[in-house]
């Protein structure tokens, strides 16, 4: 029997990897991929707690998170296409149009 803490540890490691990716990488698309890693870490946590605490709510929230990840991917990629059309670059450092 796998202890619950093992699942939370895997999820924490994945979350840290995703956070590092968001902070370190400069390519907008890879930043979005790192956000997907973080969402998967949250999903692992939710499903593990749902299994060990014998409640269905965790799996439902994980489902909603997947739906929201789909929406985030669609809108994020549309923003990338708009930015890429104007500047021919997906470096997040060069997107400073809204900076004051």
């Amino acid at each position, binding site marked *: 029997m796998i202890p619950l803490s093992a699942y939370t540890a895997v999820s*924490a490691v994945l979350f840290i990897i995703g956070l590092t990716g968001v902070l370190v990488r400069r390519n907008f*698309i890879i930043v979005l991929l790192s956000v997907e890693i973080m969402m998967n870490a949250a999903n692992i946590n939710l499903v593990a707690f749902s299994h060990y*605490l*014998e409640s*269905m709510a965790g799996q439902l929230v994980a489902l909603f998170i*997947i*739906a929201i990840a789909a929406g985030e*991917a669609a809108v994020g990629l549309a923003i990338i*296409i708009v930015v890429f059309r104007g500047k021919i670059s997906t470096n997040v450092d060069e997107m400073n149009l809204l900076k004051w």
Partner: protein
Amino acid sequence: MVGVFFTYFALISIAAGVLTVTLRHPVHCALSLLALLMHVSGLFILLNAEFLWAVQVIVYVGAILVLYLFVLMLMNLKTDERYFHQSALYVLGPAVLGASYVLYNLLRSPFDGAKGDTPAAAVLQDGDTYAVGIKMFSDHLLQFEIVGIFLLGAVIGAIVLAKTPKQLDTERGRS
């Protein structure tokens, strides 16, 4: 046996996550994210969540990741990006320390709490899909509807963002 599978899925998903963050070519990053998603779905199987496994494979791998790959190949990105911010090195040491402290505490802590109403035997009796469906369309119907509205808004927003406004203006000018 379950321990072997858990170790395999956990280690490969962590390795794939590291590769996703560190590889240079964006397409390689997306492909290693595919490996990560598939192994995370394996973890869902170990947790008796077959429905989420199917949703993960179909929606995440089949739709979201293919969308990312589509945009990557559409834009034909060259990756001459600076790899690290200079300031990242100063943060790295404390970050590693803090992360290992959190991990140590996570592995030691005995998680426990109030049990819910669906033990593993009840899930296995009718299947996970049945349990998820009953729960979703009885207690969580409002959230389901809200997610539906959210997805509609996301689709409309994506279309509005990604269409080309310039051509529309020239057409209006001509007519």
